């Protein structure tokens, strides 16, 4: 039988983590499925959990008055949804919604924070791994801001495309 610890161990966020830490962390997790269009979290609601995506896709989105929702980023298997559980006031900054049937490990943020307080080495390792995810998302957001595909008038007569 595959346990939560197996799914945690196989997830990219925890690749290479020491086995006893995997078991320790897995104690804060449980398997959870979402149907398409079900919300994993909603803006300004308490962010008690984050999710390791195992199968399916989710979208991070926001809304603006009466206009349609604005999808910002889609995430798939081996990716992570949610880091608001790490920092006060522990509330979601955006909506996170399943866009297909979704299989996840739901991690209890408070439980994990407590464990990191107990084991500073684990806490540092986990923080470093989450910082990598954040760095990657920040890099992507900067890349998006560059708007590299925008049509810019050529300043010379030579352009292959």
């Amino acid at each position, binding site marked *: 039988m595959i346990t939560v610890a197996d799914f945690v161990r196989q997830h990219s966020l925890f690749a290479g983590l020491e086995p006893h830490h995997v078991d320790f962390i897995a104690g804060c997790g449980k398997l959870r499925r979402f149907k398409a269009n079900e919300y994993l979290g909603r803006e300004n609601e308490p962010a008690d959990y984050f999710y390791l995506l195992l199968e399916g896709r989710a*979208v991070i*989105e926001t809304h603006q008055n009466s206009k*349609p*929702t*604005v*999808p*910002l*980023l*889609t995430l*798939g298997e*081996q*990716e992570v949804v949610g880091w608001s559980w790490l920092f006060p006031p522990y509330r979601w900054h955006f909506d996170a919604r399943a*866009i297909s049937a979704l299989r996840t490990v739901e991690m209890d943020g408070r439980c994990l924070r407590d464990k990191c307080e107990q084991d500073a080495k684990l806490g540092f390792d986990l923080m470093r791994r989450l910082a990598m995810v954040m760095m*990657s998302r920040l*890099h*992507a957001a900067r*890349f*998006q801001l*560059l*708007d*590299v*595909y*925008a*049509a*810019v*008038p*050529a300043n*010379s*007569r*030579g*352009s*292959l*495309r």
Partner: protein
Amino acid sequence: MNTPRVLQVHSRREEIPGTFTLQLRAADDQPLPSFVPGQFNMLYSFGAGEVPISFSGSARETDSYTHTVRALGKNTEALQRLLAADDIGVRGPFGRGWPIPELAGKQVLVIAGGLGLAPLRPLIYHLNDNYQQFAGIQLFYGDRHPQQLLYRQELQQWSANMQVNLSVDQAGPDWHGHIGVITSLLNNAVFPLDNTIALVCGPEIMMRFSIQALRAKDLPGEAIYLSMERNMHCAIGHCGHCQWGPTFVCKDGPVFRYADIEKWLYTREL
């Protein structure tokens, strides 16, 4: 090759607003020189000027040339005004194309950003026609918005023989594909490090970031090729306008192996 030959516009197709595809045919019975995917022609709009444009059609079409152009300046706007049966001056084919002989038996990653899909399309036709010769084909194509994706019908057709991964930077709620930068798709791509070749074409920043994502996964620099853009005038390495480090993009490129030009790619204001 160095004197423009007069061809005729056979057909013109609006791909997306401001971006169009011209199919050119000879006005006489003389055959057209063959080309290698990745090469380019100098297209001369009479009374306006000349501009280098990559081939975007199949190299198997021996009686016509196809070019996809974005109207962004005087010369390309003049090309945009051409209609069927209009004359156009053509010099070429020029440059070094994609390394097709090296691709046999390999996992091929084709990575396109924006209009960069056009210079890759002749290569994609080749891969699609001969898909059994390769260990696998993965196309990654990123653009700004779903409405700006090129060749949408063909993308669907190609997915029969290759894995097609689309990504847009921004989208409305009706888009069900991936939203995010193309590098996020590459971060999750699976390929054997010792049997993969990546071919990249798009805005230079997009190519740098894509190459960084590939290198972070330990794909060797020798297995990455990219198509560069620089200011080209003569197209035969004489005028020096497209000099880039020790190379001329028009003659030594536009396709380069990353391992050979890495230094120049990270040299500022070159």
